[in-house]
């Protein structure tokens, strides 16, 4: 996963819960070797999974709640970096239709031959779409958080239903996104 996500997460924890909480999380982590991440590097996805689990334990909130809050904060930063790719989008569905390209570019900048996840949409109706997320990294939870963040950015309310999930043994993650 791109280091920018880790940097954003560190910033999110620091801003909301202080530097000490962040350092405590890093201290408890077995996978993270430093409290500082380099935004342009690629890191093991499991590090983020572990950091999220530790955060959930320390703060006593669910991972999903952390992700939703994190997504809201991270999204504008990512949007800022990639806005030239998606500046014509004015709603969540349009944005999701273009987001795969953004992810690809950001990952491939660090490693042109790196594996990129696939995010494919199936728009069922004006307020419903199915989203298939295929990635061996299995970080669908982050994708979910970012969708919440994106919806917030476009002043829309969404509900996400995880129909199938790699964490449940399915081949890919399938999310049904419904706008209110």
């Amino acid at each position, binding site marked *: 996963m791109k280091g920018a996500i880790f940097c954003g997460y560190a910033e999110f924890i620091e801003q909301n819960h202080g530097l000490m909480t962040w350092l405590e999380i890093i201290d408890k982590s077995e996978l993270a070797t430093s409290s*500082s991440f*380099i*935004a*342009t590097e690629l890191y093991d996805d499991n590090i983020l999974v572990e950091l999220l689990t530790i955060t959930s334990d320390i703060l006593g909130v669910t991972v999903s709640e952390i992700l939703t809050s994190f997504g809201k904060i991270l999204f504008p930063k990512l949007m800022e970096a990639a806005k030239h790719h998606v500046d014509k989008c004015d709603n969540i569905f349009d944005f999701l239709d273009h987001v795969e390209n953004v992810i690809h*570019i950001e990952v*491939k*900048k*660090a490693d*042109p*031959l790196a594996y990129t996840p*696939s995010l*494919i*949409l*199936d728009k*069922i*109706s004006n307020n419903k779409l*199915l*989203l*298939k997320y295929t990635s061996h990294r299995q970080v669908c939870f982050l994708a979910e958080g970012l969708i919440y963040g994106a919806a917030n950015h476009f002043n829309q309310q969404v509900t996400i239903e995880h*129909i*199938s999930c790699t964490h449940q043994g399915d*081949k890919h993650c*399938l999310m049904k996104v419904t706008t209110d």
Partner: protein
Amino acid sequence: MPNESDDRLEVERLTKHITLLEKALRDERASKKIAEQKLDDIYQHRYDSYRELVSALEQANHRQAQLQVLSNLANYHVSYNSTAEMLTHFLQEISLLLEDASVILFDFKTPEQAISYKLDKENNNLVKLLPKRTDISSLYSLVGGNESQWQRITEKLTHNHEISAFLEHDFQLVFTYHRLRNRVNLVIIDIPHYCYSKELKQTLDTAGQQFVSALQKRSTEEKLANNYEKLQHTLKKLTSMQNQLVHSEKMASIGQLAAGIAHEINNPIGYVKSNLSVLNDYILLFNQAIKEVGNHLPENEELTFAQQDIGPLIESCIGGVDRVAEIVSSLNSFSRKEESTELQPVSIKDIINDSIKIAWNNIKYNSEIDLKCTEDLPKIMGHKGELQQVLINLIVNAVHSLEEQGKITIKAWANKRRVYISVSDNGCGMDEKTKNKLFEPFFTTKPEGQGTGLGLSVSYAIIEHHKGEIKVESTQGEGTTFELCFPIANESIAIA
């Protein structure tokens, strides 16, 4: 002991320290961000230079997988498999492409009466889904007129409970095409989602179009094959008609020739026969006169011999003339001089039985007769005597073809328009040359003096006169079958 002032100073020192450290951390972070930004720019630059190559590589990878599917399908389409196998293979490939999705197929002329099938992926075939036909008109109306295109149905198929019971997911992919000119197939792929790349959707479309094109091509090929078969049949019929025409022309020419000869012979034969009769009377007178003056005549052995021989000579001449007259009469029959015979409803069964009786003397020594007539054989319009003549001729010919003991099978049957009779033997059979000349007058395979060669030619003329047909099939060493057919008499009098 440190006093309060020292503590305060220490706190101030530490606070200042922390402030400085925080500032240093912020500076470090700011510098890191600048460094990261620069690195990102470098990466961006590097990516930009690689982008086309990377994107081409990715596209090539995608296309390779999809082309593999299309190539598999195309290879299968051009192979000599049946249309049903082609369909099953197509549906299986599509199912595999869409993560092993379930496939239902409807085959119908009208959507109210559709036959449903399910793809059995394990056994690679289509099995019936519902035992009865089902109404899929509402589903078909959702598809509209979009043929040969994959279509996402986002309305739940609850209007047809029979179908929905077999669907696991809420949304389906539908594909329709014309299997035959007036027969439509509707394919339903039961998928949980349609989250597939544009390339894969394109592959699906191409595969669908490829399949429909292959079906059309197959249909055109079948039409061409049918047309070719029809043409072959027509050609065969034409050749047969041409042969028949040539044969009829030949027979007509021979008939004309025979009629001419008969006419030319008839007159001299007439007066020769009449003169011979008179001559016979004259000889009787001469004999009477010789008898009366016999004692006064000198002994003459030659005269005595002539006197004895003249009677049988005249009788032989009259016999010969009668035989010539008979041949002339037969020639007249062949040349249709006797078409004036009146036709009336006759029973073929009776004619066959009578003919067997008449020919019994010829049959009884070396042959066995097997007679198979269907019940309620309709009557035909015919002349009993002439038809008997034909049958006797065929039976006697059959007997002559038997080398020692043999079997003659006579069958009679009918369809709606015609009555058929066949006379078969298991005798010596005929070669092609004999078969070709069979109906020509004076053609005979019998030793000289034993047959006139007029039997079959006269029979041919009689059958023609009855608007019938005669066919012969023969294999040397196995036997011969003559098949005759005659039109059934008018319905009012046809039932025997």
